[in-house]
Structures are given as structure tokens and as C-alpha cells.
């Protein structure tokens, strides 16, 4: 592989890892916020247990979203400095707004939510998770706006060899954005629904003592996944209409075409299945034979989400900014195979191992069930003041 292939591989691997975790964050956040709201309003203990149990899975997943996200943010400058050189005045704006106006708040409020159990006022604590949810969706909006600019550089003109922002409204009203954003949001709900459904099926199959808890969550997971699939598929097909305007030959290459084909065929089959299962939501948790089947379905929306990104990104080759800047021209001048190889091994090695560990920790949280949850547990007593004579 030459240096360009290596740099692209690095972006593809870290980007795919990032989205595996982000897609679940996006889908779970509103479910946790709604469950927390039911807890705050009714004060009933089962809602508190549900908030803490699914919340622990949510924050464990969130950690990897942060780690991979850090590499994503800095990778632009490391490997693709030609992008900021040529289009930073336009492309940088949505990214800067995402970090300052969305992620800065999301991270601060997430800290308040995680550590604020048993110390914040009930309504204030609830407001924190809603702020986390709101800013997570704001993040998704700005990142998709930035990505859509790469698909279709709307709102900018070239002046003196660089792109200049001329119409911010056009950047936000980009036809590459209007249908892809709800497509991604739907995929998040679909993934979160499948995780909740699969985890509940696992617990029921093991003849859990928490029958009521997981019967109810299995139904919720199924219905959320079904709703998510309607949004995802609907806005997936809707993208073809506008795509003809800016990338008519998008799926000509074998990889982009295959990724698109898998996404459509498998996605449609799973959606058909959800259509059949949704009316049976009340009875489904009792059917023991169905539980292993629901468990093994869990990874599907995640794999389809990766196919979606492959289709969207590979289909634009050789352009980084469609029709304006090629990936070859965007690569940092002077970047060597040695540099990228070392960082590629470092990033994918560390992030890959941490991702694996994180999935095992999520699986463990699912297996232990709602009785042993660290999130929101009683605080530990602070240690005693050390006697000066005993300190060294």
C-alpha cells in the first residue's frame, strides 16, 4: 500500500470504529432521557433501576465514542492538512461549532449526570440528561453538515485557489444533508432498539429473576427498532432523488456498489421481519424459541451502518471534496508511509483493543442485570483526615 492508501485506511478504520459507538449513543440517549423522565415524574423504583441499568450500558459505550472521536478530530490536521489549507474557511466552521456549541456542553453535562446521582436536585439531574441528548443530536447535525459539504460543496466559491464561505444557509440546506441526517438518526434508534431487544432476550432466555423488567424492555426495544427502521429506510431511499443532482455515478465502483447492495438487501429483510414482529410485541417476550434468534440479530444494524458509511465515502472517490479537491491533493505534503504506518498501528491497535474490551464490559453489564449497577450507586465515604504524625 502506498502512503495515500495507508492514510485512507487509517481514516476508514478509525471512522468506522467511531461510528459503531456513536450510532448507539445517538439511539440510546433519548431512551435513557425518557426513562429518567418517567423516574423523575413518578418516583417509581422500577424506572430508576431501568435508568441506571441502561444508563450504565450507555456510558460504557460512550467512552469509546470519546476515544475514537479524539483521533478523528486530530486526524484532519495530521494526515489531511491540504483539506484545511484549501477548504478550512468553510469546512472548519461546522466542525468548530460542533466542538464548541455541542460537544463542549455534552461532555460537561454528561459529567454532571454521571456523578450527580444522589447529589443533584431531581429535576436538575433530569435536565442534565436532556442536555446531553440535545447536544448529542446537535453534534450529529453539525458533523453531518460538514460531511455533506464534502459530498456536495454548497455555499462556497473558489477565490484565489481556496474555498470561501458565501452562503451559510446553503451549507445548512445542502441537499446532501436534508435526507442523510434523519437517515443517521433513524439508524441510531434502530441500533439502540436492537441492543435493548437483544439484551432483554438474553436475560429472558437465561430465565432471569427480572422477568417483568426485561419483558417490558424487549417490547420497547422492538418498537423503537421498528420505528427507527421506518425512518432509516424511508430517508435512505429519499437520498437517491437528490443524489442525481450532485453525484450521479456514486455507486459505480465495486466496493461502494457492494456496500450499498448489502445495506439495502439486508436492511429490507430485517425491516420486513420487524414489520411482522411489531404487532406481536405483546407476546414475543414469552416465546422462548425466538429469544436466541433476537440475540444474534443485535449486531446487524451496526454492520449495516458501516456499509452505509462505506457507500457514502467510497462512492465519492477520488474526491475528498466532490469535484473540487482530490484525496491525493488533500493529503499532508511530505507525509511518509513510515509515519502513517506507525500511527495506524498505534491507533488501530489501541482503539481496537479498547473497543473489544468495551464490548466485553457492555456484555458483562447486560449479564449482571439491574441488581448490580455502578452508575448511580451510593457514594463511598471519604477517607479520614490523616493525622499529621502519621503522614510522611
Amino acid at each position, binding site marked *: 500500500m502506498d502512503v495515500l492508501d495507508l492514510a485512507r485506511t487509517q481514516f476508514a478504520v478509525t471512522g468506522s470504529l467511531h461510528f459503531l459507538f456513536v450510532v448507539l449513543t445517538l439511539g440510546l440517549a433519548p431512551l435513557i432521557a425518557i426513562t429518567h423522565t418517567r423516574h423523575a415524574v413518578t418516583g417509581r423504583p422500577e424506572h430508576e433501576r431501568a435508568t441506571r441499568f441502561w444508563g450504565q450500558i450507555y456510558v460504557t459505550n460512550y467512552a469509546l465514542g470519546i*476515544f475514537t472521536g479524539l*483521533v478523528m478530530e*486530530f486526524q484532519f490536521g495530521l494526515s489531511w492538512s491540504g483539506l*484545511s489549507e484549501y477548504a478550512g474557511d468553510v469546512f472548519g466552521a461546522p466542525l468548530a461549532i460542533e466542538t464548541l456549541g455541542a460537544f463542549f456542553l455534552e461532555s*460537561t453535562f454528561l459529567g454532571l449526570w454521571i456523578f450527580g446521582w444522589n447529589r443533584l436536585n431531581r429535576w436538575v439531574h433530569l435536565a442534565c440528561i436532556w442536555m446531553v441528548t440535545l447536544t448529542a443530536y446537535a453534534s450529529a447535525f453539525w458533523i453531518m453538515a460538514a460531511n455533506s459539504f464534502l459530498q456536495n460543496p454548497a455555499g462556497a466559491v473558489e477565490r484565489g485557489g481556496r474555498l470561501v464561505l458565501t452562503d451559510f444557509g446553503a451549507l445548512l440546506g445542502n441537499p446532501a444533508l436534508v435526507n442523510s441526517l434523519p437517515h443517521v438518526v433513524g439508524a441510531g434508534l434502530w441500533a439502540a432498539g436492537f441492543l435493548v431487544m437483544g439484551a432483554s432476550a438474553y436475560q429472558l432466555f437465561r430465565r432471569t429473576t427480572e422477568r417483568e423488567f426485561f419483558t417490558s424492555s424487549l417490547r420497547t426495544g422492538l418498537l423503537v427498532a421498528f420505528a427507527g427502521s421506518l425512518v432509516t429506510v424511508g430517508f435512505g431511499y429519499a437520498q437517491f432523488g437528490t443524489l442525481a443532482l450532485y453525484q450521479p455515478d456514486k455507486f459505480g465502483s465495486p466496493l461502494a456498489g457492494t456496500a450499498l447492495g448489502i445495506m439495502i438487501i439486508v436492511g429490507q429483510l430485517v425491516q420486513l421481519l420487524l414489520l411482522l414482529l411489531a404487532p406481536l410485541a405483546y407476546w414475543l417476550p414469552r416465546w422462548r424459541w425466538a429469544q436466541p434468534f433476537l440475540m444474534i440479530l443485535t449486531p446487524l444494524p451496526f454492520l449495516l451502518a458501516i456499509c452505509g458509511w462505506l457507500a457514502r465515502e467510497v462512492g465519492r472517490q477520488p474526491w475528498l471534496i466532490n469535484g473540487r479537491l482530490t484525496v491525493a491533493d488533500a493529503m499532508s505534503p511530505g507525509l511518509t508511509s513510515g509515519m502513517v504506518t506507525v500511527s495506524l498501528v498505534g*491507533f488501530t491497535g489501541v482503539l481496537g483493543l479498547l473497543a473489544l474490551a468495551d464490548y466485553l464490559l457492555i456484555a458483562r453489564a447486560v449479564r449482571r442485570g439491574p441488581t448490580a449497577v455502578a452508575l448511580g450507586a451510593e457514594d463511598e465515604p471519604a477517607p479520614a483526615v490523616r493525622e499529621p504524625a502519621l503522614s510522611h
Partner: protein
Amino acid sequence: MDVLWLGVLALLLVGYFALEGFDIGLGMLLPVLGRTQRDRDTVVSAMAPFVLANEVWLVAVAGVLFGAFPEVEGRVLYGLYPLVVTLLISWILRDAGLWFRRRLDGTGWRAAWDWAICIGSYGLALSWGLILAAIAQGLPESPSPLAGFGYAVVVAGALALHGWTFASWLLPGRVTGRGRTGGALLASACAAALPAAVPLAVLAPWLLEHAAPGGTLGVLSLIILPLTPVMAGAQVWTWRTFGPRRAAGRLPSFF
């Protein structure tokens, strides 16, 4: 407008060192301040509620660099390639230690992640020292290794002092055996931020020359400035919620 965004960038970078500085410092001191597992749990619990609110200042620095000074972003990050990669891997290692250490029972698991926190924190402090020294020298092809080493030691020392002071302020007598006032914490925050202020001053004229055009900065200002009260409010609120008055009795135990 470009001066305003230079101010934002400076505030975020200085704020990062003043705030995240004590997390990094405590991570470096973890084996010293926490001889037993229980003591290490206390040190981590002390910084835990602040880490997410602190480290995000650097995410914001990179965002502002990209949005308001895009040409500088590419050149600085690419120019410091191996150091930035080291910084990122150290940061991830430190964060993984915090997030994972309590997710499994067993002393070996937790002790191993405590070492990840310590090593990651040293990696952060030392790579920051080398990065700041290289920027202060004007990003030459091969910056002086002696200056870099010296600066790395200074940065690591300042962050360790800041971490020690923070623990003595939040939990007087319980971690370091001493107590420190808010004034002392402010002084150590300044000591932690000072090594970043010098290279920033060197970089300032270059940043101003390469600021994004007025149209881009106008859009950024229009969207971000109305949000600053919420951003500042959430930060202040974190300190009110987890400050020394509330920390004395009980400590949160998620990290």
C-alpha cells in the same frame, strides 16, 4: 473579529492547562499519593467529576483552530506529527484507565488500569512539554532536544504541583496530609497555564495573519457567542456540585 477569536483560542488553551492540568498532575502522582488501592480510589474519585468538563477544553481548542485558523491547524498538527500521535495515545490510555478501572471486580484489573492512568498522564505531560517547546521555537524542522527536554520537565513539574494542590484543596488532610486554600489552587493553576502562555504569545502574530476570513468568523461568532453563558454556567455548576464543601463527606464512585 480575528482578535476576538485569538482571545477565544488563548482562553481555551490556558483554561485547558489550568483545569485539565490538575487531572494530569494527579494521574502522574497516583502511585505516590495512593500507596494502597483504597488511597488510589480516593485520588481518582477526587478528580473524576471534573475530568469530562476539563479535557473537553482541548477538544474545543482543536475545533477553534480548525474553524478560525484553518491554515495554522494543518501546519501545526502535521508539523508536530509524532508528538501529536503520542499525545493522543497517552490521552486515550489515561481516559481508558479512568472509564474502565471500576468496570470489573478484582484488584489486578483495577491496579493495571491505575498504571494506565499514571503512564498516560506522564505521556500527556511530557508530550505537551515537547509540543510547547517546539511551538515556542517557531516550529523548526528539528527543534532543540535539550530545550524540549527541559520544557517537558518544567511542564510535568507544574502539572504535578497543580494536581497536588487540587487534592489538598478538595480533600484537605485526606490525600496529601495537607490542606490548601482556594488562593493556592488559583496560584498553581497559573503555574500550570504559564508554560502554555509563552508559546501562544510566540504563535499569536502568525495566527492573526492566517485567521479565517470575516464571513467565516462572523458565522462562528453568531452561533457560539449566544451559547457562552450556558457553557460557562455548566462549568461553574460542576465546581459548585463537586467542590470541597460537598466532597468532604462522601465521594462519587463511578470512575
